[in-house]
């Protein structure tokens, strides 16, 4: 059977492992039997196919319609955004591969701490007969940022691999590069500028608008993918708490719990009778689904309602009546 939807997945880079883990967590496990395979079935059926690509190539593969969907960094997407209108973002925050694109200068440049300093220094370079050189893998984003900040006189040195070394080696004066924590910058005696953050990025899901708009089958397959991603993301934000609460009758217990409406579950508490032989018809298992951040408060509330034996579980997936991600995508198509 030919797969319906082809999904580009980053391979051979920092994004590969977290992407595969994320897809597995979403119930979309990539079933690759050996690491040399260029494609592999994905999820439980045969209609999804993962296609392995370098993260940097994924926007272009999408633009040419070779794949329908892709996962890559938002930084990479933004850099290539100008090339086509057919590639759009369906999910901008997959929640992993977080990093930022920053301008960084040598630590020894004591006089340079922000963009205004850099503009001055660029003018000094120009005055001495050559522009300030910036090494980067993201020429478009960097140029756009620099021009927006009034740093007009500059030239970009496009590089691959470790750019942090460029200033010390002398082929660039400063760099604009991706970092997760800034450790690599510091190790190479570079410092980010206070207002030199060009872009904050994380993994995102891209789609080829034309390929999806033209095929209801592909769109339906994508709806399934989006549902799983959304359900997984929601599940991470919610916990399910169950407590045994003693009270007069079911209604009375429910009303006690509902005194804190904000801690009484998504629509209200679920009550199930507990057949306690010592206390017949007076004990109920109360189950609430609340935000993970409200767990401690909800636990205290249930105790205050007379609850004990409180157990907490994480849901695997949380599906709403309909998928918000899918509805948003339909609007963009």
């Amino acid at each position, binding site marked *: 059977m030919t797969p319906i939807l082809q999904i580009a997945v980053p391979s051979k880079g920092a994004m590969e492992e977290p992407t595969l883990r994320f897809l597995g967590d979403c119930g979309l496990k990539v079933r690759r039997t050996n690491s040399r395979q260029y494609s592999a079935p994905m999820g439980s059926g045969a209609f999804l196919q993962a296609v392995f690509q370098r993260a940097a190539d994924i926007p272009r593969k999408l633009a040419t319609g070779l794949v329908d969907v892709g996962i890559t960094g938002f930084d990479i997407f933004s850099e290539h955004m100008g090339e086509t209108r057919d590639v759009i973002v369906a999910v901008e925050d997959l929640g992993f591969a977080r990093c930022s694109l920053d301008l960084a200068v040598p630590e020894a440049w004591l006089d340079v701490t922000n963009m205004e300093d850099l*503009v001055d220094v660029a003018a000094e370079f120009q005055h001495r007969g050559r522009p300030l050189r910036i090494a980067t893998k993201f020429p478009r984003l960097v140029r756009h940022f620099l021009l927006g900040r009034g740093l007009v006189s500059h030239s970009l040195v496009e590089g691959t691999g470790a750019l942090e070394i460029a200033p010390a080696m002398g082929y660039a004066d400063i760099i604009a590069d991706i970092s997760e924590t800034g450790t690599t910058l510091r190790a190479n005696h570079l410092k980010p500028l206070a207002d030199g953050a060009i872009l904050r990025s994380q993994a995102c899901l891209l789609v080829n608008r034309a390929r999806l708009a033209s095929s209801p089958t592909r769109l339906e397959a994508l709806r399934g993918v989006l549902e799983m991603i959304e359900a997984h993301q929601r599940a991470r934000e919610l916990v399910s708490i169950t407590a045994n609460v003693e009270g007069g009758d079911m209604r009375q217990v429910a009303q006690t719990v509902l005194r804190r409406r904000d801690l009484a579950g998504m629509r209200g508490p679920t009550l199930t009778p507990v057949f306690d032989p010592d206390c017949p018809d007076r004990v109920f298992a109360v189950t609430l689904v609340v935000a993970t951040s409200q767990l401690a408060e909800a636990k205290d509330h249930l105790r205050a309602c007379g609850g004990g034996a409180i157990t907490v579980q994480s849901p695997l997936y949380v599906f709403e009546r309909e998928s918000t991600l899918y509805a948003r995508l339909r609007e963009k198509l």
Partner: protein
Amino acid sequence: MQKGAVPRVQGFHDHFGGRYQHLRRMVDSLTTSFDRHGFALMEVPLVEGLDLYLRKNGAQVLSRLYSFIDPDRGEVALRPEYTASVIRALASAREITDQPWRVSYAGPVFRNAPGQEGESRQFTQAGIEILGDSSVVADAEVLALACRAVRDAGLPRVRLVVGHLGPLRTLLAHLKVNGQAEGYLLEHLEHRYRGGTGDETVRRRLGLQSHEGEGLLDSEALPEHLAEAVRGATPEEARVLVLTMLDQMGLSIEGTTRTPDEIIDRVLLKARRHAALRGGRGREDLERALDFTEQLSTLRGNPDEIMPRAEALMAHYQVPPEALDELREVLDLLRLYELDGVTIELAPGMARGIAYYSGLIFELYGDQSALGQPGAQICGGGRYDMLASAITGGHGFPALGFSFNVEALAAVVPPNPSPSDGRIGLIVHEPGQRRVAYRMANHLRARGFPVTTHEPGNSSVPERHLRDNGYAAVVILPLPQAARARTEILVFESREDHARLEEVLAIAIEECGFPVECPDLIVAGEVGQ
């Protein structure tokens, strides 16, 4: 592979038919005007090294450059305007001597518009440059030429907005505010003049306000302890202090692309600026310059009314009054040109974005006040005496000029009302007539008539078809076997000068040896009925 028709690239347009002819007529009219005023037409490459534009343009234009990599040159870009190329070309072509150069240009320029689907990315500029003339007489000449050219192109009324960077630049020189701060103030002037509000950005940039909006200074500007330490020290002491401090921090000042001296000099410069801004004269001066900028940005209107207000403002801020002399002189000179239909507005607070403007600046608008509309900008320009040295990297010369946005001009000039484009259709009814027809067509073309030949075949009324397609006249050759071998001329009534056209056409055809018959004029509705 994708199937189906290949689409147009977003933002680029096909041009044909009457609208394109109108656009071409605008270009021809402008270049003819420039030519009559002694400006020689020139052309420059569509592609230039990116660095050329980086040296000249402001961020507004640069962020819209179409740039790409050329294997030989590196980063190159499609031209977003002409001036930078013209100056590059002429500076390398020959020495600018005491004899100024007058050149003109017309052609396509390109500006990308990321994310804006509807916006055109290619448009036509036509303009002039005078290189090597720093006189006020040249300023007035350029203004007058812009007004004349637009009138010749068919726009009877325009609004000319004239400004001058003299007042602000004089005050800044007087207060010794320069470099980056001057640029920030000019940008702020432009921001306010175009209706922008607020001054937080400029205050922050000038260091009058911190990023947080509290306190006097940007705490990030220098490591605080460093600023404290070097205050009051002599340059030599400060240098030792800085190096000692670096040593303590375990940092080496070597091994970057700037020398230790360059870094230390700028640290000291910042520390001094720091101290000055903390309450000294530097701060007062910047506040004063900013106030003046704000006041200046509000001045715009009738010169008789604005000039005295500008003078009063100058006096109040103790700017030498001579700063307005050039502007006054330009306005006086302009009167001698006896321009009709030009409403002059004075706007000493106009800045026109680019930091290279040094004196006169101006913009032309189609005057649509009768329609209750402000009118679109069709032309802009000014004097940029510092530009040449920035582009050539040393050797400078004065320069000024303007450019029309031809599409904007074409949009406000009514198209030529004549529906006919003057073409003449020569109708060939059968193959035996071809030789004669081609000879006659060439003969008429040599006399300046645009001619096409037609073989209508089975179409019974080719005349009507040609009339509907904007032809001025048709010429019908006699059939070889016909008894009366006379050529027939039909001139359509839609053509205003039809009688005259009929006459000259008849003469031309007879000169070629073909007897002519002219039936009565064909009224538009009658053709082929």
